[in-house]
Every structure is written in structure tokens, then in C-alpha cells.
């Protein structure tokens, strides 16, 4: 039996995390490019038009993955923020802070693509529907988290205050997810769930899953890249940063 164990705490040291992230980013970026190419090819060329919505439904291939990502990234950000708040692990704070801009970006994209899909199908870009409104609140939570971080000069106080906001805001995620069941909304219910078979053609849900994986790979690559820059800023006086400055390119 192998006695090799992964030393997880080894990577909570900034220098080790920095090196590991540097090695992982190209792999995740490449996977993201391949999966996006596959997803776009299947979604725009191979999948047939919808029998009711025609080609307008093709927005689903980005709308659903980015909407899922917005919720997943918020929960992940809150978990990291909570770990940073409770156990004072600096790398958890760095990760939470690095996730926020990408989470905000995906939330904005979910709202944007939803609005553009709403116009041909509902006849309006926006309604104050429970799903749309709770997703908009998610965007404000991401922006609020980033604004709070930027507004407080002391790094530890900024991390603590924004972590509390992130944790309180988690309550909004189940509200977004179940809003279509709890309230009578214009937004349709879930087409793909963990407990039931998808209610759409195989090519459609497979493409959605591929695009979702592509978004995950993209998110991991950009969050790790942002975390590396954040580490460099925080650890700029450390000896290992000086060593990397001599041996690496920007």
C-alpha cells in the first residue's frame, strides 16, 4: 500500500500555493478552451432549433451554465471567507477575494443573457420576477463584497467584514434556486435537476454540461491567476518573492 499522502496544509503556505497555481493555470486554461470549442460547436451548429423557440433558445448554452456558476461561485466564496474568518487561514481569504470578480462577471452574464432571451420569448427584457430579482441581489452581494474589501484599509478588518457579508448573503442562493417553485414566476422551472431525468433532448443537456465544465475550468484558471497576483502583493517583502522576481517572467 502506498504511504504517499497529499500534504494539503503544505499548500496553505503562500509560496507553495503560488508555485502550484502557476503549474495548474495552463492546464485549466487549455481544458477551458477545448471545452468551450466543443460546446460552441455542438450548441451553435449541431443541436437542432427548438420546436417552439426556434434558434433563440441557443442562448440557453451560455445562460444556464453562467447562472449555475454564479451560484456555485458565491457559495465557494462564502466557504473560503468563512474558513478565513474562523481559522485565520490567509490563503482562504485570498481565494475568497479572488473569486468575487469572476462571480460578479458570471452573475452579470446570467442577467444579460436572460434579458436578451426574455425579449423574444416573453416580449420584455426585464420583469421584477422572483428569479430575476434574486439573481440581481446576488450581483449586488458580489459587488458589495468587493466594495467592502476595497473600502477598509486594514487588510484583516476588510477580510473579516466582507466575510460576514458573504456568509449572510448565502441565504440568497437557495432563494434563487427555489424561487421558481416557491413563487408564481414568469421564469421557467429547472430543465435539468440532480434527482430527475432532463426534460430536453440529449444533445441539448450534454452541450449545457460541456459549457458548464468549460466555465468551471475558466473560473479555476482566472481565480488562480488572480490569487497569484494577490499573493505577490501581500508577500512582496518576503524572500521567496525576491527569488521568483529573478527567476520568472511576469
Amino acid at each position, binding site marked *: 500500500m502506498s504511504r504517499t499522502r497529499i500534504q494539503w496544509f503544505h499548500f496553505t503556505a503562500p509560496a507553495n500555493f503560488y508555485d502550484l497555481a502557476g503549474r495548474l493555470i495552463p492546464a485549466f486554461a487549455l481544458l477551458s478552451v477545448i471545452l468551450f470549442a466543443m460546446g460552441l460547436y455542438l450548441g451553435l451548429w449541431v443541436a437542432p432549433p427548438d420546436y417552439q423557440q426556434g434558434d*433563440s433558445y441557443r442562448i440557453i448554452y451560455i445562460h444556464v451554465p453562467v447562472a449555475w456558476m454564479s451560484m456555485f461561485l458565491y457559495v465557494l466564496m462564502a466557504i473560503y471567507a468563512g474558513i478565513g474568518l474562523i481559522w485565520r487561514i490567509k490563503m482562504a481569504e485570498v481565494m475568497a477575494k479572488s473569486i468575487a470578480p469572476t462571480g460578479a462577471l458570471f452573475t*452579470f452574464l446570467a442577467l444579460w443573457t436572460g434579458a*436578451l432571451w426574455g*425579449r423574444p420569448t416573453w416580449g420584455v427584457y426585464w420583469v421584477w420576477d422572483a428569479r430575476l430579482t434574486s439573481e440581481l441581489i446576488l450581483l449586488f452581494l458580489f459587488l458589495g463584497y468587493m466594495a467592502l474589501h476595497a473600502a477598509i484599509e486594514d487588510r484583516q478588518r476588510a477580510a473579516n467584514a466582507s466575510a460576514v457579508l458573504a456568509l449572510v448573503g448565502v441565504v440568497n442562493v437557495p432563494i434563487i434556486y427555489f424561487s421558481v417553485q416557491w413563487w408564481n414566476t414568469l421564469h421557467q422551472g429547472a430543465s435539468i435537476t440532480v434527482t430527475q431525468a432532463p426534460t430536453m433532448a440529449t444533445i441539448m443537456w450534454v452541450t449545457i454540461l460541456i459549457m458548464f465544465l468549460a466555465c468551471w475550468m475558466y473560473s479555476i484558471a*482566472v481565480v488562480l491567476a488572480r490569487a497569484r497576483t494577490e499573493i505577490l502583493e501581500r508577500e512582496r517583502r518576503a524572500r521567496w518573492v525576491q527569488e521568483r522576481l529573478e527567476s520568472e517572467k511576469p
Partner: protein
Amino acid sequence: MTEFLAMGGYWPWVWGSYAMMAGVTAVEIAQLRFRRRRLWQWLQRMARLSRQEER
């Protein structure tokens, strides 16, 4: 090809969605690269200055 681009008459909404996705991800990547490069140059300048002071 024209038929593909027309998206059954829904091109402004379909391409508007895909273009925004491409645009914001491109901006995010560019911003990350710019921030890292600027920080790197600043750190190198600081390291050079501290070496000069040591001499």
C-alpha cells in the same frame, strides 16, 4: 453561412449574448494580465532600488 448568422431572425439576441460573454471574459483576462505585469514591474523596480541602497 448567412442563414447561420441570421439565427432564424433572432441574431441580435443570440449574438448579443455570445458577444457579451466573449467580451467580458476577454476584458477579465486582459485586466488580470495588465495588473500582474504592472505589479511585477513595480516589484522589480523596488528590488533594484533596495540593491542600490545596500551598495
